[in-house]
C-alpha cells in the first residue's frame, strides 16, 4: 500500500480520532498526576520533592503538547511508535512519582534507575521507529515530507 493511497486518506479521520482520544487520556493523566503530587505534598509535612511536584510534566510535555502539535500540523506517527512513546512517558511518570515517594520518605532504592533506563529506551525506540517508517515511506512515494506516513500500518 502506498502512503498516498486512498486507503490512507480514508484512514486519516480515524487516525485523528485516535489521536484525539490519546490526547484526552494524556490530559486526564496530566491532571491526575498533578493532583496526586499536590495532595501527596500537602500531607508530607513540608518535605518537598521536585519529583513529586513536577511529575505531571511528563504526560504534559511528552503527551499533551506533542499530540496538539501533531493534530494542528496534520502530521502522524506510526501506531507502533506511538505505543512505544506512550509506554516511555508512562514509565518516566511512574518513575518520577516513585522517586518522589522515596524522596519524601527519605529513602533510596536502586530499582528507581530502571525507570529512567526503560523510559529512555522506549522513547528512543519510538523516535527511531518513526524515523525508519518515515524514511521507508519517503522511499516508496518520493515524498519529501513526513505527512501521511502512518498509512504504512494500515495495510
Amino acid at each position: 500500500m502506498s502512503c498516498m493511497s486512498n486507503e490512507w486518506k480514508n484512514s486519516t479521520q480515524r487516525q485523528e480520532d485516535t489521536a484525539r482520544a490519546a490526547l484526552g487520556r494524556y490530559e486526564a493523566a496530566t491532571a491526575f498526576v498533578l493532583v496526586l503530587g499536590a495532595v501527596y505534598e500537602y500531607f508530607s509535612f513540608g518535605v518537598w520533592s521536585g519529583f513529586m511536584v513536577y511529575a505531571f510534566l511528563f504526560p504534559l510535555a511528552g503527551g499533551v503538547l506533542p499530540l496538539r502539535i501533531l493534530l494542528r500540523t496534520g502530521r502522524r506517527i506510526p501506531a507502533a511508535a506511538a505505543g512505544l512513546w506512550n509506554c516511555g512517558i508512562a514509565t518516566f511518570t511512574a518513575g518520577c512519582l516513585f522517586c518522589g515517594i522515596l524522596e519524601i520518605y527519605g529513602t533510596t532504592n536502586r530499582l528507581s534507575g530502571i525507570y529512567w533506563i526503560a523510559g529512555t529506551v522506549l522513547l528512543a525506540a519510538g523516535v527511531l521507529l518513526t524515523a525508519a517508517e518515515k524514511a521507508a515511506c519517503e522511499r516508496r512515494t518520493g515524498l519529501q515530507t513526513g505527512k501521511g506516513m502512518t498509512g504504512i500500518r494500515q495495510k
Partner: protein
Amino acid sequence: MKKQRKRGRIWEWLYMALLGVFTVYALLDTFVITKVYAAAGTAAAGAETADTVSSDTEETDDGDTAGDAGVAAGDDSGTVADAGDTAGDTDAAAADDTSDSTQTEEAGTVIGTYSQDGVSITVKEYRVSDTSVYVADVTLASADSLQSAFADDTYGKNVTETTSSIASAAGAVLAINGDFYGAQESGYVIRNGVLYRDTASADSEDLVIYKDGTFGIENESDVTAQELLDNGAEQVLSFGPALVEDGSVSVTQNEEVGKAKASNPRTAIGVIDSLHYEFVVSDGRTSESTGLSLYQLAEFMESLGCTTAYNLDGGGSSTMYFNGEVINQPTTNGRTIAERKVSDVLYVK
C-alpha cells in the same frame, strides 16, 4: 481493521500492567520486604577486614552488642526521680541564650534523673518555638556506656522495631532513635566498632563517635569507612547534617530548602565536653507542638553549650526512651501518636 488496532494496543496495555506490577514490587522492596545483610567484608576471605568483622559479627550474634542485661528497663535500682519532683528547675545555659528564631518560652522542667555506675542522666522538657523539646543531659564515666543497637539485633533492610523495644532489649536506661540506616542503600554504617556498610553516599556528613567518646564530623567524600574504623571510630551515623561544629551553628536558615525549613519532630545528639552529652528529641506535627526546623534545632543545641551536634532521623522516627518509658509524643502515619519502627537506636546503659 478495528481488530488489528486492538491487537496493536494489547502489548501497550500489557506493558502498562507490567509497569504497575514492577512499581508495586519496587514499593514493597523499599518499605516491606525484609533483607538481612552481612557486615561489610565478611565475604572477603583472608582479608584483614574480614578477620576483624567475622569475630565482631560473632560477638553480635552472641548478643553482646544488644541484649546485655545491664539495667532492666523500668526496673533499675538507680536513683530515679519522677517528673514533678524537681519541677521548675531551670537550665541557665538554655534559658540565657535564645536567638531570634528560637524562642525558649520557659526553662526546662525536670522529668527524671538517673545516677548509677558512673552514668548520670537528667531529662528535662523545654518549650521551644511552640514545641516540646526533651533534653537528656548525660555524663558518663566511660565511653563504653554509649552504644548503639539494631532492631531485632540484626543488620538489614526493613528490619525494624520501635525505639522502646530495641532499648528495652538492650537494657538501656536512655535511648533515642538513630539514623535509620535501613532506609538507605549507601552511607557508612559502623556500630559498636563493627563495619557493616562501606558504601559512600556522596557528600554525606557523618557523625563519628570515637572509642574515647569524642565526636567528629566527617564527609564520606573525604574518607573511607575503613579509614574511620582504623582511626578508632566506634559509631558512625550517616544522616545529618551537622548542626553545631566548634561551638557554632553550622546550618543556615536557607540550607536544604524543604526539609530543613519545615517544622517537624527532630532528634539530635551533641557533646558538650569530655563524656558529657546532650540527647535531644523534639515533638512536632501535633496541636501542642509544631516542631522545629533544622536551624531552630541547631540554635537550641548551641544554646545548650554543645561544641558538636548532629541531626539524626526525625519526623515520625523521633523518639526518646528513658527508664522504661517513651517520654515524648512520637507521631506515626501522620499525626497518630504512636512509635514508629526504626532500624537502630543510640543508647546509654
